[in-house]
């Protein structure tokens, strides 16, 4: 390739502006009151937010409530979005906070804590890897603390990276990794006793 050819701007990059730039433009249009831009922002992120809310809540109505509240708050506070992190990360920070507070309000966490206590007493029994074992695993995930469960759900269930989780939860990447390690350890203990048959 000659020097002149090297000097030509690459059309591929020209036609694809940086996602952060597009994001800033979209946010600016939303702040100007452009309803189409608001809908575009919503469309771009709603699926991922809703999926996470559903995984956290385990209930369609609650997931919808949390998702709606997330976007309502996001639009209210959009002026505060500085662009230091991605819009997705910023939205997820709001979403996780809404979900955790919401779940506390409906007192599901407390109910699920009781389930894990029951489960420990049944640990001597053996189960096949059928609905029973899966139900036990899900109950054990439900019973994880508010610090561990979001990390486990985001990483092992929804496939977020530690960087995304750290940004969304406002914690260092190392803390996200440590919490995932702890969560898995607790789930291993909860499963080990009655998964023996399957493992063997």
């Amino acid at each position: 390739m000659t020097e002149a050819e090297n000097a030509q701007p690459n059309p591929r990059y020209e036609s694809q502006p940086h996602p952060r730039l597009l994001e800033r433009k979209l946010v600016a249009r939303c702040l100007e009151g452009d309803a189409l831009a608001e809908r575009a922002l919503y469309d771009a992120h709603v699926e991922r937010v809703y999926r996470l809310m559903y995984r956290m809540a385990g209930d369609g109505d609650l997931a919808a409530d949390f998702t709606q509240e997330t976007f309502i708050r996001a639009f209210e506070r959009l002026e505060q979005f500085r662009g230091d992190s991605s819009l997705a990360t910023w939205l997820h920070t709001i979403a996780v906070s809404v979900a955790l507070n919401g779940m506390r309000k409906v007192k599901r966490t407390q109910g699920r804590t009781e389930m894990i206590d029951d489960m420990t007493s049944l640990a001597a029994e053996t189960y096949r890897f059928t609905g029973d074992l899966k139900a036990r695993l899900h109950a054990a995930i439900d019973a994880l603390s508010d610090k561990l469960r979001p990390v486990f759900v985001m990483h092992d269930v929804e496939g977020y990276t530690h960087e995304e989780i750290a940004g969304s939860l406002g914690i260092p990447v190392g803390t996200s990794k440590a919490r995932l390690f702890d969560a898995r350890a607790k789930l291993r203990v909860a499963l080990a006793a009655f998964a023996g048959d399957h493992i063997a």
Partner: protein
Amino acid sequence: MSAEHNDRIDELLARGARDYNQPGSVPRDEMWARIEASRRARSGQTTKPVRTGRVARPLWIWSGVGIAAALILSVGIGIGRRVERATPGGPLPVAANTGRATPKTDLAVADEAERSAAAGTSRDSIIGKLREETKGTDRRAHELASRQLSPSLEQSAEPNLAYRLVVLQHLAGSEAMITAFRTAARRGDVDVQLASWARELLSTTRMLEASAATQDPTMKRLLEDLDLVIAQIVQYATHGTNNSEELDLIEQSITSRGVITKLRGTVSARTSAAGT
């Protein structure tokens, strides 16, 4: 626990976790409609006008408007019932305010006075609240009508969405005031508060009539009818004479022009047209 054992448990974990609270399809439009309605309710404002040149509005806008209009409709219709319920014995015939010939015992008179006093407070507070609610609409209507329409909006096949929503709110508020007036007039207790409320609505009605944004001939006719009826109510309420002939004339205007039916029909039809 051996490393192999741990690996197997991890495998189980990975397999089982994938099904954890498996989400179904995302109810995008339903959630967006609720987000829009909630944001409007929180801010006390209507949807901001779209600034792009696109004329056709997507379904989600209409869903939002539909929900808001349905709320307005239910409020407007419910308002009259609340006012009527707040009046002991329900609505009375017009002739009832000319006096009662049947003598009453002291106890019965005392009971009625007590109930009337309680009902009076309730009615006043309801009318006060309703007036405050319609004041917000009046302010918004004045803002929108006095604003110079942008060329894109003037050329648009669709009237200004915010404007239409305010008109619907105004119609529902007017229906509430007329119902409250009829109930109060039958009892002979049309007061200053109701007179002020009617004046405010008359001002908004006239402003909407004169506005360039009101291009629909059916809406123009309805606003003209509303203008006439509310003007009569203002006159009646301001003079405070409780003249039954004047009251009959107002009733005649309301019924012959089918004002209440048209108000409810218009709000209902436009709600349906909005896609609910």
